[in-house]
């Protein structure tokens, strides 16, 4: 009890600290700093209609590399410490039977979800969305698959390959940016003129390619994590 009062006090002081910050906030009426440049020049410089994507993949592409690395790290760590052997992937456990509704719906929905995911990451430079969102959508498909059939055997070799190849490709494209254009992860690897027609699928240089790889990698990574959670339940 005393402890909770203490914590309440702590939260109160923290609230006071936040209030000080809050009171210094004023709603902006126009853009300031670097964002002004992004909004004004972004479309021309990078060729992506979606400015957020332009920032995520190109201007701050290095952050995105870090992000992908974090997902990759998490998957790797989970892999080594939930420690699955090959046979675990093929093992099956008795689960409560899944409902008919879920099984049937999954059969209809999974292909559509996958398709939608691919659409989202391929059009990341045009519409809201992108590699992470698309990858996450694909992974929801995998989650649905696992829920519908808890003993489903995902081909983890494929997952690993997708994960590896898309990861390496991301780095290679980054280096290509250095060789062919202005710097690491520069999207103008086809040259300034190779940005394509603004607003179409094949535009914004390397962005759709990078985002596709990111999408595949994220999808594979999250599926991998889900799969491992599922398969290591036996031990629990």
């Amino acid at each position, binding site marked *: 009890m005393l402890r909770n009062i203490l*914590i309440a006090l*702590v939260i109160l*002081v*923290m609230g006071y*600290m936040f209030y*000080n*910050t809050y*009171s*210094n*906030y004023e709603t902006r009426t126009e853009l*300031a*700093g*670097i*964002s*002004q*440049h*992004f909004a004004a020049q972004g479309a021309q*410089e990078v060729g992506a209609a979606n400015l957020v994507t332009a920032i995520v993949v*190109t*201007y*701050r*592409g*290095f*952050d995105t*590399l*870090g*992000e992908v*690395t*974090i997902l*990759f*790290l*998490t998957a*790797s*760590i989970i*892999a*080594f*410490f939930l*420690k699955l052997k090959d046979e675990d992937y093929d093992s099956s456990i008795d689960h409560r039977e899944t409902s008919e509704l879920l099984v049937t719906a999954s059969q209809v929905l999974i292909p559509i979800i996958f398709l939608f995911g691919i659409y989202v990451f391929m059009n990341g430079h045009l519409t809201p969305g992108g590699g992470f969102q698309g990858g996450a959508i694909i992974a929801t498909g995998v989650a649905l698959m696992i829920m519908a059939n808890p003993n489903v055997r995902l081909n983890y070799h494929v997952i*690993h*390959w997708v*994960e*590896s*190849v898309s*990861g*390496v490709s*991301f*780095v*290679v494209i*980054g*280096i290509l*940016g*250095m060789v062919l*254009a*202005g*710097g*690491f*992860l*520069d*999207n*103008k690897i086809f040259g300034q003129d190779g940005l394509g027609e603004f607003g179409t699928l094949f535009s914004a240089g390397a962005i759709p390619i990078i985002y596709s790889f990111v999408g595949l990698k994220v999808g594979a990574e999250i599926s991998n994590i889900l799969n491992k959670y599922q398969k290591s339940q036996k031990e629990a």
Partner: protein
Amino acid sequence: MVTPIFIVATALGAGFAIGVLNKFGKNFTGGLVLAAITFMTFISYQWFSAFQFGDQTPEYVYTAGFMPPLSINLLMGHYEAFVTLLINFAGLLGGIYMFNSLKNRGSNAQVVYLIMLMGLNVMVMTRDIFNLFVFMEVSSIAIAGLILLEKGTRSMGAGFKYILATSIISGFLLIGIIFAYYFTGTLNLDGMIDANLSGIKGGAVAVFMIMIAIILELKPFPANGWGLDLYEGSNAGFSAVVSAASATASFFVLSKVMDIAGPEWYYYISLIGAVTFVGSNLLGIKQENTRRMLGYSSIGQLGLLMLILGFRDILGDQTPYIVFGILISHYMAKAGLFWISGIVKSKGLKGWAVIRKKPFFLFLMGTFIFALIGFPPFPSFFAKWTLVMELVKTGNMAWVVAILFGSMMEAVYLFRWFGYAIKGENEHLEDFKIEIHKIVPVWMVAIGLYVMGYFTAQFTEVGAEINFIPLAFVGLLLALDFLPVFVKNTIAIAGMLAYSYFIYPDLEGDTLRLIFEGIFMLGGILALIAGYAYKGTRAGFYPVAILMYAGLTGIIEAKTTLEFFYGWELMTAGSYFLIIRGKRSMPHGLSYMLFSIGGAYALLAGLGIAHVGQDSFAMDIINNIQYIPYWAYGLLIAGFLTKTAAVGLHIWLPGAHGEAESDVSPMVSAILLKAGVFGVVLALIGMGAENNQYTELAYALGWLGAITAFVGNLMAIFQEDAKRLLAYSSIGQLGYIVFGLAMMTHLGWLAGFSYVINHFLYKAVLFLTIGAVVMRVGTHNMYEMGGLIKRMPLAFVAVMIGIIALSGVPPLSGFTGKWLFYNAVLEKGWYLQGALFSFSGILAFMYLWRLIHTVFLGQLKDNHRNVKEISIWFLIPIYTLIAGLMVYAAKPEWILQPLGNMIAQFFPDGQLIWDGGTAISKYGQWSGSLIGMTIGATFMTVLIWLMLSTRKAHKVKQFDITYSGERPERPETTHVAYNAFEGLYKAMWVATIPLVETFWDRVTNILHDTAGFTRRLYSGNGQAYMLHIVFFILITYLVIIGG
């Protein structure tokens, strides 16, 4: 030049590719990871050497083909190159060390390790604050995963707590970053610096959150329970990498982000650093678990670095040098210790005795511990020196006190641990195995420390003057340690002779230094001759003995205060090892070391004050101290008095000298103690000698000397152990010397110096003889000896002469000293002190009598019936020294006249007048030869009369005694020497109450209780640790930003 972006590309490329390459097996993937790290190390090295040896200018790496602030940029400058080199090199060595641990966990673990290093590299290089956040997350997630290299719930708990804590921290960081962006419109560090974020309304809070998060990454006390668990719970190899690579990276991040915060933050960074340094090290003394103890030490060292960083405006150009010295020492030494802890596999400190089964481990461990504490020749020594000099110069004494106190605490637990390793019981412990890939990294950092130390010294003008030749000779002896005693002893003696010959021209004409150098070098050679009596290899003896002599000669040769302090610390290290070699010497070795370090820190502070307002570090700056000179001289003298064992600081001496080996006791008593005297002499000369203005200080010193003389002699009376008796006697004799010097008159100094030479001669004779006797009879207890005159007549004669000289009975040199003393006391008018001194002289008779009577006279013990005369190798130095005593007695003017001339430089008034061999003072005259002859004649008369009058007496055989029908239960109680002074004890017990011991015990207990109580904060509950962090943040907030 390979652009630094390839550090990232290599790591990620290899990391991502391993997913498909793992079918080639874990050795292949492990090799690939190491190859990648090697390449990363190469890139950093290439840049570093271009900066260090070429004229490379810092280079920005732009990403995405846009300029910052639009895109993220990396900076490769001199510091960045150095820090990434450190990170990658630690990663490489750690990768080699952990090769098998990583392999057992599979290719995924190998990849995570590689990526962690990459994350740390980017943290160092990036100039974008959000990018910094991302890569901090990369490395902390990787660390959270790698903790699980070690199996078991302990590491799991540690890992989870680590994630909880870092999540809270990164939450605050993120809030801070986004507000910083909101206020400045940029995420670029340089942009934020230009925008003066702290100056913007509301920006201060954003700065606060960023800064506090980055400070928390450095695990400040007390919000660091999670950090300790990390060090304790993870694989030893990994703890080493965290301590070396990750902590270094976090520290560098703080150094670059604090530019945003501006100077108003510097004070708080220093404050947090100081609290961490002192707090962690204080709690460290309570640790019994090695790994956790090292964790406390690591955190403490980072605190020290933070403290230094906060002072960077004040330290100016010196900052990089100081940071380098402390950082590199900690980096290498701590990694080495963690790695050793993984090989030895002992959790508790006491189990470390096992490392003696592989003796070279003691060398490694010793190297690391001495480097951490800041002994020469390691980089931290030079860095700490510079740090203290600069802080004192700028009037930051309170900070110096905090630094020295924290360092002292660190020394307490590290040397206690080292003591267990050197002396602990190890027979029941199971030997450990060494794998080649685990020992190679340890050797590399150990050798690296010496190399770095040498270069650190060359870096400054004053450090470059240091003479490393004696130290190189120590290294040579260490390399030859496998040879038999005879060879090594000859090499050592030859080396000392040669060195004395070469050094003589430098000292010619400087009588003061020649006297001390003579005592150190010639005395050292004589004591070494006794070493021929030993058989086998006597492993480890010669390097440490020569280390002590290297230090001693370093003190004499010192032209600068740095050289002096350097010699002082070498001497301390060498003598510590010598002392701890003795049986049952563990606690005494520790207390010797702690008093020495305490003394050295007092010295350091004193020399620091002396440097204020001076341009140079030349030795003569102590003759002209401009800033708080009372404090300076007080500190200097207090530092020196720890070595002369003045009362209050003496408790280490009896055990240390008493338990030392037979030929070591004279080294540490007759010779080593004079180093303290030399220091006191220098300080007193500095105080102005005849024109001394610090009369109160001298007056206090006089009383201290007199009381020391009294207490030392009194305690000597009640000893049953012959060597301890001599040890207490040394305390008393050194009290005489200090008393004489403190009078600050010509006669007082003459008396003091005559005792310096005297004490050297007779204490060496006595310790060598008694030591040799002990070697023969196998006991220190006097009541277990007796009648040895029949077996060892030569030893008897030596002791006889020694005690005559010591007690001040004419005709030997002790009388000379006494005569001078009484003259000096009368002249000075210190009657009360003089009375105490005189009474001490009487006490001296009471124990000296026992030494001859109990050991050599009386009945021979049964088990000593067949003992032989003491070894010839002891007799040679003993009789050489006796010859010296005889010359001194017969022709005192040969010694006293040059002494008088030397002292006259400082005290021209009140000199003795010499008329041939007769000395004339205000109060009378005295001639050594005349007195010798008178005494000789008297003695002969009495002897002849006795022989004539007792012609009819018959010899009593040994068994011609009865016990009146009683059979004593404890035979020693029948020995006349046993408890001989019971009556006196009843009268004097008040004076023997171990007040000083009680005082120091109290101090120790208070420290231990404080540490024991405070560390309960670390309840082990992850939630409590989060609460600590939040508390830490809020309290700092209220302090810095306020209400």
